[in-house]
């Protein structure tokens, strides 16, 4: 697993981290070379070549690339020791920078350095726990049933050290690169540990097969290619998901000139506020989707009510006030989004308790709903409506401040103020910025004081 995003201007701390990681890796390889030098160069070159090919086909999952070179590094480690694993891992990541344009030099260097360090540490740990190498200068000796259960502990130690070490180092790199909290990136990285453990298991099997019947390595092609292909299809579908919601909601809203683009802007503002409040990446993702869907219930309302220039009658007002519940009911029908229905149903609640549909007070309303309320109100105020013209951004900002503690959560309003800038917090500007990213390294999307 390795950090992947290529950024046009890398933060200095990340550059420093990358240089120090690579330097440490190089020093360690040089110091340990005499004791750990691999015995069978021809074999190592072949494994390294396979790793290079695998790394350049690594499927990207979110901010992480699940590298299929990992099993080959494990294989090299078990056969020839930590330095062999370090060389295979290093060569594969370096090649990804050489052959592929998707990674920058410093990012690739960090990935290479961290993989080398983790491989060396895990290999050292394996040998310290009593593990043995399967290949020496001229003899290969696979694991035999008689070796078990004695070798289980070192193998288990190797797997844990590689998976956890790799996940932790990748999380560190992403946290520094994207200037997000280490806790968030660690939480995300930990979810990949089971997949990494499975890949380590593949590596153990590869080493055993190589030591038993080298040519049988070819049998690993289909399982690994299939796993990679399925992951990539999953990834492309996940990418398309938010785009599809955006397109369909946009098409629905396009019928009403007063609400065109409203949901997309609310989603963008809500994510801005979420970032300003240091919410984790998952919460920001939820904010984006909930922002896109928050007014879904309105499409069941007659257009005559939505576009009425004057004051609504009590009956019309009652219908209008049903829209959060109607929207929540629709969102609730999508199993993976049912959690968002709570935020959708509460987006017209007020901090003071005078909102609808339930009249919940303060913290009884979910934080994400309180954020949506501010984002929704700000966009509504700064957009033309059938019954009034748009306010200026400055005027809307003053209203938010005046209503802070009454209609709106003061903490959310304060966070919104921190993100506020003329060029960002206006409906026109947000449509120029385009799709808001939940972990975007772009300064323009993260707002500023």
């Amino acid at each position, binding site marked *: 697993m390795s950090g992947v995003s290529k950024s046009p201007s890398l933060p200095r701390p990340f550059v420093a981290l990358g240089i120090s990681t690579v330097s440490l890796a190089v020093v360690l390889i040089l110091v340990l070379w005499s004791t750990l030098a691999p015995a069978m160069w021809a074999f190592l070159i072949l494994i390294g070549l396979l790793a290079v090919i695998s790394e350049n086909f690594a499927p990207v999952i979110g901010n992480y690339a699940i590298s299929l070179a990992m099993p080959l590094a494990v294989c090299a480690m078990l056969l020839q020791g930590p330095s062999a694993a370090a060389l295979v891992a290093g060569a594969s990541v370096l090649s990804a920078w050489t052959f592929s344009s998707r990674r920058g030099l410093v990012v690739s260097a960090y990935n290479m350095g961290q993989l080398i360090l983790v491989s060396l540490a895990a290999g050292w740990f394996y040998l310290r726990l009593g593990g043995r190498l399967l290949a020496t200068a001229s003899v290969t000796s*696979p*694991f*035999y*049933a008689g070796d*078990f259960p004695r070798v*289980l502990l070192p193998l288990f130690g190797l797997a844990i050290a590689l998976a956890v070490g790799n996940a932790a180092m990748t999380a560190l790199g992403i946290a520094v690169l994207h200037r997000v909290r280490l806790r968030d990136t660690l939480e995300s990285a930990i979810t990949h540990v*089971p*997949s990494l*453990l*499975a*890949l380590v*298991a*593949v590596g*153990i*099997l590869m080493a*055993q*097969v190589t030591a*038993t*019947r080298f040519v*049988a390595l070819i*049998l*690993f*092609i*289909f*399982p690994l*290619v*299939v*796993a990679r*292909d*399925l*992951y990539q*299809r*999953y990834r*492309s*579908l*996940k*990418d*398309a*998901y938010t*785009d*599809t*919601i955006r*397109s*369909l*909601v*946009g*098409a*629905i809203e396009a*019928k009403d000139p007063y609400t065109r683009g409203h949901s997309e802007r609310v989603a963008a503002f809500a994510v801005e506020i979420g970032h300003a409040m240091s919410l984790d990446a998952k919460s920001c993702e939820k904010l984006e989707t909930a922002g896109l869907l928050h007014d*879904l219930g309105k*499409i*069941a309302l007659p*257009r005559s009510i939505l576009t009425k220039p004057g004051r609504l009658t009590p009956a019309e007002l009652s219908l209008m006030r049903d829209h959060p519940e109607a929207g929540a009911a*629709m*969102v609730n*029908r*999508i*199993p*993976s*989004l049912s959690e968002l229905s709570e935020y959708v149903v509460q987006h017209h609640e007020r901090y003071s308790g005078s909102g609808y549909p339930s009249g919940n007070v303060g913290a009884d309303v979910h934080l994400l709903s309180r954020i949506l309320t501010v984002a929704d109100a700000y966009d509504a105020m700064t957009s033309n409506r059938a019954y009034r013209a748009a306010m200026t951004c400055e005027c809307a900002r003053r209203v938010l401040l005046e209503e802070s503690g009454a209609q709106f959560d003061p903490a959310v309003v304060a966070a919104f103020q921190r993100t506020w800038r003329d060029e960002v917090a206006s409906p026109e500007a947000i449509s120029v910025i385009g799709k808001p990213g939940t972990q975007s390294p772009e300064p323009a999307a993260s707002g500023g004081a």
Partner: protein
Amino acid sequence: MSWSIGALVDAWGVAVVFGGCIVLLDWFDVSLPRGDSFGVSGALISSGFLVLDSQGRVLLGLVALSSVVVLYTLRHRGAGALTLEVSIGIRALAIAGLWASLLLVQLSAINFSDAIVAIFMASAYLGTELIATQTRLAASTKRPLGRLLRGNITRQTPIIAAQVSVSALVVITYPTMGAYGLVPVVAVLLLIRQSYAVLLQMRETYRTTVEVLVEAAEGQDDRLRGHADRTAHIAREICMRLGFSPSHVERASYAALLHDVDAIALSDEERDSQATGSSSLVLQDVEFLADVIPIMELCDGREVAGSVREIDVHIAMAVALAGEIDALRFDSVAQAHHGSVLRRVSVAASSSVKARVVAAALELGYRIPAVS
């Protein structure tokens, strides 16, 4: 061959280890929307047959069959899932396929390597399982077996090849590592299973989301409510009747669900006055729907980017006809609008394409409009 108690206990030891792994893998099988399931235990069942002796094979077969019973007893199966009897029948047939392939190997005069035999036997097991499952599906849905098999073999070959490879790996590592070698093998199989499961879950989520949003949008217009969903159902039926592969049926389904997305909430007059639709434009930025866009462009009467494939014309015709059929059945739906969609597609379709699609709809018992 000895059937003494001692030999039976020895055979039990190994068969129980294999059996335990098979139960574990069966437990994690993935239920598929069409009623059957995706499992990865076949690789272990077939390799177990090769590394065990006769008693072990009998015991392994019994454990593999019992595993199905355990699964049905302890785990809830969704609506439309195969019954216990059918599932046991399919597994029994697959095991019979294993015995037959083993017999063939033993009768053969050629001394194949164990890895080659493992590949042959795993192919026999998984092939028999696939044929049995599709035969049952053909019988229950009255669809042509040959077409079902062709579509599924194309789609499932990589996954079957992956399982066959794993089966050969078991046979290679078992003589040295013994049952301990099954641990990494199970990990590899679970990795494949997990990759498939998350993909399937995401597809389901995607589809439900599109359905809910389209239905919500239709809710603005009493005359349209439920139209997209019904059209998708009819288009799916027509495409299945034409013997199209599951991926083409899925494309037809998405195209039908979304064919009116531009016209939602327009008045009848506004809708009928449009000479060209724009549904394809609404969704042109969604990469996942790139395969669906040419069909929607045909329905919209727009020029298709690149060359027009015959299969796309077939599907577009099915979608347009399905929309018109639904418009006829429910007078409230804007018929003139759907008539224009059908006319647009008819321009691009040859007479043989039209005839095939119309014949399929008639066979399904639908009352259809006149197609020029």
